[in-house]
């Protein structure tokens, strides 16, 4: 509900020029980048101030400057780890998308399947990786497969759940239309259900994007280095053990930045895809 649209305060029509549609759009785009940067800068400043004012030693909470310096100084160590974690994250996310959407489609084909399989998906979602990892360890040999399985277990559920919800939320009049025109299951899925589920799926994707990253890190914590090489989790464990706290924070900062980057990219993709038809992606929706 932007101010300039509310019924309560109608600006004089003459003022309109300043907020014409293209200008509002450009401003919006600028805000979208500048604001998060401002806020994050503010938080970083606060962090710096806290460290200085309370004379917190670097082995408890290093100052942002020190973390940045560490990031730069140790880039040769950290960047390859970032690449590894990123590779696992993206692979896990891809598998979560494939697995989640596939399962959602299968589950919504019939109540019988839905009622039989959904509980199993829930069991998989809630099973603590740490606890079942030994079993995975015994029955799966390929290290990369183990890691991906762990990350997948963490990431797939939101996509499954949201896509299922989306597939079930297709307009019933359109469903009738498809039935009437004798659409096959596959046609209904492809032309009606999947497009209708898109906004929900993309919402699930944004949740799973972060979880895939969490999954990549947790999997490495549990299963050790990934087979692509040592990821950021290994760096964090090492740094913790060796009490190289600035390095630990540098690795954490990389994880955070990666998470935000994934989210932003998925949001942009999402808005592009939904662009001209879904409420949630429309301009001036408030």
């Amino acid at each position: 509900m932007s101010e300039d649209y509310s019924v309560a305060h109608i600006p004089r029509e003459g003022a309109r020029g300043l907020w014409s549609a293209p200008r509002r759009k450009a401003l919006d785009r600028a805000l979208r980048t500048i604001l998060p940067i401002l806020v994050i800068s503010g938080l970083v400043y606060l962090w710096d101030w806290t460290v200085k004012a309370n004379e917190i030693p670097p082995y408890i909470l290093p100052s942002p400057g020190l973390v940045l310096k560490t990031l730069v100084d140790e880039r040769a160590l950290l960047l390859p780890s970032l690449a590894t974690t990123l590779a696992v994250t993206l692979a896990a996310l891809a598998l979560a998308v494939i697995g989640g959407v596939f399962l959602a489609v299968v589950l919504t084909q019939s109540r019988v399947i839905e009622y039989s399989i959904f509980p199993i998906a829930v069991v998989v979602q809630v099973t603590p990786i740490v606890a079942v990892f030994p079993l995975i360890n015994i029955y799966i040999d390929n290290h990369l497969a183990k890691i991906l399985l762990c990350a997948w277990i963490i990431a797939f559920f939101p996509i499954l759940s949201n896509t299922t919800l989306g597939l079930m939320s297709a307009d019933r009049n359109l469903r009738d239309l498809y039935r009437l025109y004798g659409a096959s299951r596959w046609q209904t899925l492809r032309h009606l259900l999947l497009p209708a589920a898109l906004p929900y799926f993309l919402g699930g994707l944004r949740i799973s994007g972060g979880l895939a990253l969490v999954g990549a890190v947790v999997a490495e914590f549990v299963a050790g280095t990934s087979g692509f090489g040592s990821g950021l989790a290994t760096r964090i464990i090492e740094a913790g053990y060796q009490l190289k706290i600035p390095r630990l924070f540098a690795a954490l900062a990389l994880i955070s930045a990666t998470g935000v980057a994934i989210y932003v990219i998925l949001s942009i993709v999402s808005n592009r895809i939904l662009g001209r038809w879904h409420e949630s992606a429309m301009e001036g929706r408030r």
Partner: protein
Amino acid sequence: QDLTPVTFGTNWLPQAEHGGYYQALADGTYKECGLDVTIAPGGPQVNNRALLLAGKIQFHMGGNLLEVFNAANEGIPLKIVAAHFQKEPQVIMTHPGEGFDTWESLTEIPTLFIGEQGFQSYFQWMIDAYGFSVEQRKPYTFNPAPFLADKKSGQQGYVTSEPFAVEQEGGFVPTIFLIADYGFDTYATTVEVMSKFIDASPEAVQCFVDASALGWTKYLYGDPSAGNAMILKANPDMTQAQIDFSIEKMKEYGIVDSGEALEQGIGAMSAEHIQGFYDKMVAANVSPEGIDISKTFTLDFVNKGVGLDLKAELTK
């Protein structure tokens, strides 16, 4: 008499390896010298050390000397004031009769389940000193099932714990190699304290070190039931059988009471011993060069023969 409240953070759930401290707590030994001690248990992911650094707790149970070397390397003002285990109780276990019955043959074993910390520390030394390889190692997640499932594998463990579980549940007695016996001669279960606290409250440190030594003496040679009761209460998964096994192994391998401790009391340390271990670790590329070892410990509170009389009395 006003008691000073202090907290001792351990590195695992309550178990017999912490028996001396629980004993001292249970029978009032800490109170006698003026401390109101709280024991904060650790766990697999629990990091009590950060609390020590932040000044939230006063005493922390260190693993082995490598940890304090790392701290010194990072310029962290932390010292060990006592070492309650003369030997690292870490072992490698194998299935008997599979051809891995000697330390040398272990370098040929296809798989070794080693935890992340072990991998960072003694396993690096094993690579350097004996030619183990990184490829052998698979992560150990504190569940020995994968080891049991694979006869051609070995696994890390505390001499006092994992072998018991294997005997009980796996139905065989594993072959055990105490790595301390092959040259990894670090002290273990150290008491870490921030230098600031040592300077500010030396009497509290002294009390903790002395009372702990007495606690351990009573726990090993007297009646440990008060300490055990406390452990069993704090950790409902613990069993009396496990505790008995642990105490027996600690005694059998001289984990707590051997070497310097026999002469100077439980918790004893010596500069030479620490320096010797450090040199070894530098040679093995486990620890960084150039650390001023004297900053990692203080002998002000140990080597005073505390508890020797009591032990003599109890073992009479």
